[in-house]
């Protein structure tokens, strides 16, 4: 049967490499050999804006660039890289699974279609490859065939799925999964949730309820609230992250769909405002297409490779 494995072909590193060579350095383009003046500043500004960095963070970065006015475009790119690293280094904090928390509970949340279920499949695969036992909780009881989707990921990764009938209370499903994990001595439970817009009060309340139920089971849980951010989205992603963070206390981000031409620059605004760790980047639909977030690499893809 055809499945997404049929179309992945090349793994993450091949893709990333391909991607980075595609997005050549800004310096090989029209900035080559030029000095930082008003015109080149505008060029930098436009490149940031078209990468979804947003007006506010872009102005902030351009101010930083202004300080090296008169210098070469190379110096400008370096100044930019430094500023971006200042922003992203602090949020480059990988997800650590604390073995004393058993099960370690990861709640995955996000707006519709941002890649929650796919990310869960990949993350489960990754954790299993590290030698941990994993259980999925099919907490999306709303969307048609959401359970089947997660079950298929369970088959692909040989991970069990706890589910109930469509329309069941998601908090109850997650609770079931926690109890099952405890009984079976499972290391990690990853709970899927239905996609929801951050503006829907009722649905955000529902997430809070899931969180409460998890905390009742283990006061230290959930140990990770992972928010998926779709790199192709614009400034609304900041509103999403802000609202999910306010409601649930997001502890990590996964930036998805970085395999397209979108650069995901809104992540800078999120990092600047919320300072939530960025855990992963996703670059495809295959089981291996999830990598630990690396600030240098992300910046490389955003503004091009380091000038050789």
């Amino acid at each position, binding site marked *: 049967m055809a*499945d997404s494995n049929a179309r992945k072909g090349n793994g993450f590193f091949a893709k990333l490499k391909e991607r980075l060579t595609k997005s050549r350095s800004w310096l090989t383009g029209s900035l080559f050999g030029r000095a930082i003046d008003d015109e080149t500043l505008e060029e930098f500004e436009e490149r940031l804006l078209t990468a979804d960095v947003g007006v506010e963070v872009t102005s902030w970065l351009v101010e930083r660039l202004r300080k090296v006015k008169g210098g070469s475009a190379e110096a400008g790119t370096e100044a930019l890289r430094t500023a971006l690293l200042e922003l992203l280094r602090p949020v480059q904090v990988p997800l650590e699974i604390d073995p004393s928390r058993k099960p370690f509970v990861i709640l995955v949340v996000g707006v519709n279609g941002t890649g929650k279920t796919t990310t869960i499949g990949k993350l489960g695969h990754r954790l299993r490859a590290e030698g941990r036992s994993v259980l999925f909780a099919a907490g999306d009881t709303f969307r048609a065939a959401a359970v*089947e989707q997660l079950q298929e990921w369970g088959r692909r990764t040989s991970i069990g799925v706890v589910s109930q009938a469509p329309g069941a209370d998601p908090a109850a499903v997650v609770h079931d999964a926690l109890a099952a994990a405890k009984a079976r001595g499972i290391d990690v439970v990853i709970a899927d949730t239905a996609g929801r817009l951050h503006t829907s009060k009722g649905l955000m309340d529902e997430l809070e309820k899931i969180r409460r139920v998890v905390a009742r089971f283990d006061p230290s849980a959930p140990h990770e609230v992972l928010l998926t951010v*779709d790199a192709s*989205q*614009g400034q*609304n992603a900041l509103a999403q992250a802000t609202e999910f963070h306010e409601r649930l206390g997001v502890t990590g981000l996964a930036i998805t769909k970085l395999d*397209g031409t979108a650069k995901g620059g809104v992540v800078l605004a999120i990092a600047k405002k919320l300072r939530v760790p960025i855990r992963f980047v996703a670059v495809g639909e295959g089981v291996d297409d999830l990598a630990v977030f690396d600030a240098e690499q992300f910046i490389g893809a955003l503004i091009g490779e380091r000038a050789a």
Partner: protein
Amino acid sequence: MFDTLTERLNGALKKITGRGRITEDNVRDTVRQIRMALLEADVALPVVKRIVERVRQRALGTEVARSLNPGQTFVKIVHDELVHVLGRDQTPLRPKGRPAVLLLVGLQGAGKTTTAGKLARYLSNGQTSEVLLVSTDVYRPAAREQLETIARDIGAGYVRPASDNPREIALEALAEARRRASRWLIVDTAGRLHVDDEMMAEVRELHAAIDPSETLFIVDAMLGQDAVNSAKAFHDALPLTGVILTKADGDARGGAALSVREITGVPIKLVGTGEKLDALEAFVPERFASRILGMGDVVGLVEQVQRQIDREKAERVAAKVKKGKTLDLEDYKDQLEQLLGMGGLASVLEKLPGVKPDALASAGFDDRQLRRQIAIINSMTRKERRNPDLIDGSRKRRIAAGSGLQIQDVNRLLKQHKLLAKTIKRASKGGLERALGGMLRGRGGMPFGR
């Protein structure tokens, strides 16, 4: 309530006063503000540049209408341009043939499958059994099950050919639709990246095989700058006939709509506004333009005011105010009549963000109230109208009797008139709508309330 864009533009344009015209000189800052506003709304930069340039051209030499401030005038120019882009040759969905075949394409997670279900309901007016749905997404786990479940829930037909080849699946579905004499065949496809050559070739083949009468590009309203790239690539690969915007029920400003339309020229036909399968609506360019600019239908209000307010009367009032005179009840009556002439309070209030007509109506703030006040003024003598201070207890009793109302009603009217006189004074400084907005929202005193 005049949103930040208008205020920022006012700041940038403060040099223009009275009869000022918009010139190269005073336009520069303004253009930058508009550029920022559109970028914040996720309109793609190349599209922003084109729009801003057209706005600049149109704005140059424009006279700032007396009843408006320059910021409002400029916002209206921008708004008109956005409506023009969004609504140019607006064409409804018109699937042809029997079965009429609709093909849904787009990026991963755009909302194609949900939209397929919504379209089935929308097109068939609830006669969903006349619709056949098929999914050619052989990649995403349980994608076909998802559409099958939706079809079952809404009572539409669903086929699942045994093949794992999208083109073969679609062809078999087409044959099945003919057999069943279905009126519509809706073909869902796998989400794909526009840079995935293999997948783009696949959907081209699929399209060629079934020759759909509508090829709809499904776009997430939250999309960012990259919307131009994906839209262009899909448009180059396929003869798109329409765009459906999804997830528009959130708080995204939706600049992607503008990017996609400007780059492809393909009309936006429908908007998805919720997860339920009936949440699909016709696309209204005016409303969406306001949304992108981040305001209520302010422009509609501005236009209405422009159209309706009797210039002469307005000028008479303005002259009076300038001379430091207060407004008499004669003027007040004119104002009331103009409000009624604009289609009543409700239609004015509807257009103001942050004002709930319901709430105001329940506070006794309605057209009936306006008519009563006019009746009261009609029972006054000319002298009384010119000089309201004359109106003592016995005059009040007479006026109340003459209008068939109570003394309290007369008292309330007199109090409200005073408030309005104050508001109008302020209006001579800040622009009519600002004052009107403030007054209707209760700031600066309610002229006809409580």
